[in-house]
Structures are given as structure tokens and as C-alpha cells.
């Protein structure tokens, strides 16, 4: 049954009723992927894998999917692809969260300083983001790898720091918006302590939606960078599986007709990144799109 309400009360409708169905599909798919990744990560951590991901089986190399005992087939050493795919999530899961945490916390702090104090902080943030814009991210990461060692956590710290300016600009923009309306002044006039205004009213109430969106997009980016580096051989090293080095290892057999061992992880990358991106986009439309004062 369709319910008609006054325009002013549209926001009284449950989110599901006023949303664009396509956005709901996006978000639904994204959430399913996030859930799948999370559950798979737990399974990998607990070691409940169907096979030992390092156990080779020379009798059964490059097996096709649905081979009995190996749902997704095996790779060129006869290792179970399903187990390796699940374990491959370990390569980016925690490092990705670390990168997101760094860019959210650092970016919020910079954004608050730029928006609240202005002056030097504002200039710092704008120079910082210009500097990063003028420098390819991957090159920066390779530089760090060359200077230190090919450790995924070093890489993710770089990813986190390079993600900070986007968040900082977002938070500073929100503060400027609220300042131009007299809300921040009014909150001070009401006697609210500065930390309540900053943390509760600005960050939590006004910035949470865009920050969650940025976090999902940041995760997608982190996965992409991890898999790219592992593909290039700068990330996770064999025999530890990562979706990136699995694609790389499988690609040697690709032209011999065994396309599956590299296609499976490639599809996993595609589906996962698409999931995080669509989740971010869908949430953006649902939470940010029309809810303007």
C-alpha cells in the first residue's frame, strides 16, 4: 500500500520507503559483500578452511571449479583456490582498517583545526592536499617500499596519510557551512563546551554520514592498492596468499588455457571493490543526497 505524506514530512517516512530503489540495491549488494568479507576473514583467522592453503597436490593442478573436494578448483601447484581466496582476505583486511582509521582520525583532526582555528592550519591542509594531488600515490608507496621494506603495514600507513586531506577538507567544509549559518555561534551562546560542539554536534551529527561513506571508499582503495602491489610483487609474498599475487601466479598459465586460477581472484577483487564502492555511493545518495537544511 502506498502512503502519501506531506512534503514537509517526507523525512518522517522510514528510510526504506523514501529511498530510490536502485540505491537500496547498491547498498544491499555492498552490505552483502562487506558481510561476506568479514565472515571470510573470521573463518580465515579461526583456520576453518576446507583445505590447508599451502598443501600442494601435484596430481590435481589447475583443476576446474566444482572438482570434487575443491569447490573453486586448484592452482598451478594443486593448492585449493577457495581456501587461498579466503586466506587472501587477511592480506588487506586489518591493514585496510588501519589505513581508514589513520585517514579518519588524522583527517578529522586536521579538518577541525583548519575549520575552527583557520589561518595557518587552513593553509597547511590546502598545501598538503595540493602536494599529494601532484604526486601519484603508487609512486609514493613504491618509494616507501624502497626506503623501508615491502611490508603491507608501511604501505597502509602511507595510504592512510594520503587519505587524510580528503577527510580534512570534508570536515573543514562542514564547519565552514555551519559557521556561515550561525549554528556554531549559537551553540557557544547556549554555553555548550567546545568539545561537545566539536565532537558531538559537528563530527558526530553533521559529519558521520560523509565519514562513513569516505571510509567505505577508502577500503575499496586500500584493497585495490594492496592487490596491485601484491600483483607487482611488492606486497604479500608467496606462499602467503593475496588476491594480487594469486592473479599474478595464475597469469603464467592463462594463455595455456588454464584461465581460472587467475580469473577467480580477479573476480573476487572486482566484486569486492565494486561492493565497497557501491556501498559508498548508495549511502551517499541515501544519507546525504536530499537531506539538506
Amino acid at each position, binding site marked *: 500500500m502506498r502512503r502519501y505524506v506531506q512534503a*514537509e514530512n517526507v*523525512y518522517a517516512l522510514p528510510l526504506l520507503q523514501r529511498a530510490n530503489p536502485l540505491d537500496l540495491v547498491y547498498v544491499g549488494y555492498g552490505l552483502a559483500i562487506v558481510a561476506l568479507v568479514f565472515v571470510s576473514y573470521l573463518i580465515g583467522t579461526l583456520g576453518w578452511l576446507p583445505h590447508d592453503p599451502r598443501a600442494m597436490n601435484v596430481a590435481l593442478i589447475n583443476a576446474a571449479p566444482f572438482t570434487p573436494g575443491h569447490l573453486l578448483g586448484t592452482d598451478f601447484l594443486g593448492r585449493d583456490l577457495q581456501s587461498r581466496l579466503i586466506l587472501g582476505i587477511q592480506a588487506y583486511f586489518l591493514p585496510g582498517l588501519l589505513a581508514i582509521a589513520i585517514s579518519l582520525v588524522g583527517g578529522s583532526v586536521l579538518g577541525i583545526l583548519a575549520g575552527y582555528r583557520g589561518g595557518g592550519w587552513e593553509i597547511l591542509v590546502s598545501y598538503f592536499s595540493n602536494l599529494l594531488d601532484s604526486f601519484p600515490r603508487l609512486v609514493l608507496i613504491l618509494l616507501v617500499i624502497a626506503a623501508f621494506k615491502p611490508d603491507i603495514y608501511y604501505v597502509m600507513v602511507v595510504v592512510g596519510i594520503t587519505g587524510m586531506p580528503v577527510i580534512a577538507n570534508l570536515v573543514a567544509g562542514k564547519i565552514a557551512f555551519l559557521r556561515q*549559518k550561525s549554528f556554531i555561534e549559537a551553540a557557544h*551562546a*547556549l*554555553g*555548550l563546551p567546545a568539545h561537545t560542539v566539536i565532537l558531538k554536534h559537528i563530527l558526530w551529527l553533521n559529519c558521520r554520514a560523509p565519514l562513513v561513506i569516505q571510509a567505505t571508499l577508502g577500503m575499496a582503495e586500500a584493497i585495490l592498492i594492496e592487490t596491485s602491489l601484491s600483483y607487482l610483487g611488492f606486497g604479500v609474498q608467496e606462499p602467503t596468499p593475496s588476491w594480487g599475487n594469486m592473479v599474478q601466479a595464475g597469469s603464467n598459465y592463462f594463455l595455456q588455457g588454464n584461465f581460472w586460477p587467475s580469473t577467480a581472484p580477479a573476480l573476487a577483487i572486482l566484486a569486492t571493490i565494486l561492493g565497497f564502492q557501491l556501498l559508498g555511493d548508495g549511502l551517499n545518495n541515501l544519507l546525504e543526497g536530499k537531506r*539538506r*537544511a
Partner: protein
Amino acid sequence: MMLLSIENLRTYFYSRSRRAFVRSVDGASLALARGETLGVVGESGSGKTVAALSAAGLVSGSPGVIGGRVEFDSRNLLDGLEGYVKVEERDARVMAVEKDERGWGKRAESLMAGVRGKEIAMIFQNPRAALNPYATVGAQLVEAIRLHTKWKSKSEAKERALHWLERVRIDSPRLRFDNFPFGMSGGMCQRAMIAMALCAEPSLLIADEPTTGLDATIQARIVELLEELKAETAITTLLISHDISVIRRISDRVAVMYAGTVVESGAASQVLRPHAAEQHPYTAALLASIPSAEAIRGKRELRAIEGEVPDTIDRPRGCRFYGRCNRVTDAVRGRCANLEPPLAELAPGHKLRCWLHAA
């Protein structure tokens, strides 16, 4: 017994575009007795709002408040702050201001602790912008109540919030409680703002152009509400408006501000009486510029005040209104041009800053 008395308040801002210091408030003095409503009138740029914000310690911008006394409930809210500021003046112009912002800020905050929001509450023009767009009106009201009153638990505070929404005459408060600001009309938002300001039962309410930006019919309603609340709570109010009809309706006393200072103050009936004998020429000009019913019927032309509010970068040598004054006579012209008139008390409570009426 004065609740608030502002003496010789000075608030300056640095204008980047003009590379000079603007004296937004320059030696203004105002006083409010307990329970009375003081209306502050003046053109835009006369320093009304900045004076009120300075009193509440809410000036953002630099250098901001420079000095003066703001005595609230017999304590000076600017006590000992002058030590943090050094002003360098040359040829009636502020050349440099040295202000230890950090030290000033710390001391000012400690002087203001427990005062702002609790004892001095404020309402603003454009109420919708003054509410957090992402929190419901109820949640914001509950926050203010839990911060300032003895109702600390969520359910008690909600009860109290509904009580206040009812008191500011918001229809169906239970429904409005869960509304976001954008779901409410401007008048409704202003009512909610008034509830938030009054919930702490402050002794002073500063209303900064509370009706500006609202529809004419809603303006009248808000003025009615302020009148009713004034009668109910006997709250002391500093009402800033350039709408003289609003001021006339709710003020007991009126102060007229011009170019950063008070040029006339006294009982509302006295100051705002048209064609009064003892009146500042600026007040007279302001009153002449209001469209009255008879003026409209008689198709008389409205009289705008000639000229503009002078920029307050250079301290004028004589009277600040001299350049626009149409009442100046040859007898006083010399003094008007060269000497600033003092704020002289003509009759008990009626003060005037004009050489025409100086003793």
C-alpha cells in the same frame, strides 16, 4: 539595582580590505535594571549586535573586545582583561593593537564560566540557521536542559522540554519534539530557540533581531510571544532590532546607537515620541523614516536619512552625526564640528549626546 551595565565598551576589528582597524563599538555604555526590557535601535553597522555579542563574550574575529566594563550581577565580566591588550593610536586612528589572545581567552572563559547560556541566554536572527540541522529540535532542547538545569536524566529532561515547547506555544509539542529544523517553519524554529534560551531560566536574555528574516505575520506572533513571556517570567531582556515598531511594543527603555556609541537613552515613551522637543537629531531622523499610517494616507514622502553611517576608522573630531545632522544651528556648529558632545543627563533617566541639548 542594575543587572547588566556596560561601560565604555570598545570592540575593534581589523579590516583586511581596508587595512585598518574599524571601531565597531567605541565607548558604548548601556544599563539594564532587573526585569526591564531595553531596546537597542540604530541603523545597520551602528554596532548594536557587536555590543551585545561583546557583552556575552561571543565576539569572534580579531582583535575583538579591547576594553571597557561589562558588569553583570555585580561582577565584571571583563575584569583584569585590559592587561592583555595594548592599543597604539596616532592622529585619531588606531595604528596597532597587541592582544594576547590566548591569555585573554583563558581569563574571559573563566570569568564567563557558568554565565553564558546559564545566566545570559541569546536568541539570534534567522533561527533555522542557529539550530543544528542534523539533530531533532527535541534532542537539542534536551541537551540544553541537561546542561543547565537540575533535570539531568533523559526522561526528566524530555518532560521538561515538552513543557517548554508548550510554553513557547508550539502546537502539538509531542510531534514537534522529533522534528528536524528543516521540517519546521522559521517562526516555529524561533520558538524552539526561545525555549532553548529560556530553559535554563537565565536572568538576562539577549535577543538579537529576533524577528528579522521572518514573515510579517510571524514577526507579530513572535513579538506577542516575547511580550507574554516577559509578563510571565519577568526576565530582563536586551532587545536589538532596527524595527522601531517592535522596540516600541516591548521595550521599557530604549538606547539609540550610532557609529559605535550610544547617542540617546531613556524611557521608551520619551525617546520614541515623534517630534519631541528634547531629542537627538539622529533619533528624530530614525523616527521620521518609519512609514506611519497617517503618512501613507497623506501620501507624504518617507524621509530617508541623508548620507551613510560613517566608517569608524578615524575617530571623528566632533559629533559623530555632524555630517548628516539637519538640525545643526550656527550657534553650536563650531562645537559640533570639533568636540564630541558628552552623554548628558537631561532629565532623570534621559541621556542625550548632543550639543543642542547640552547644558
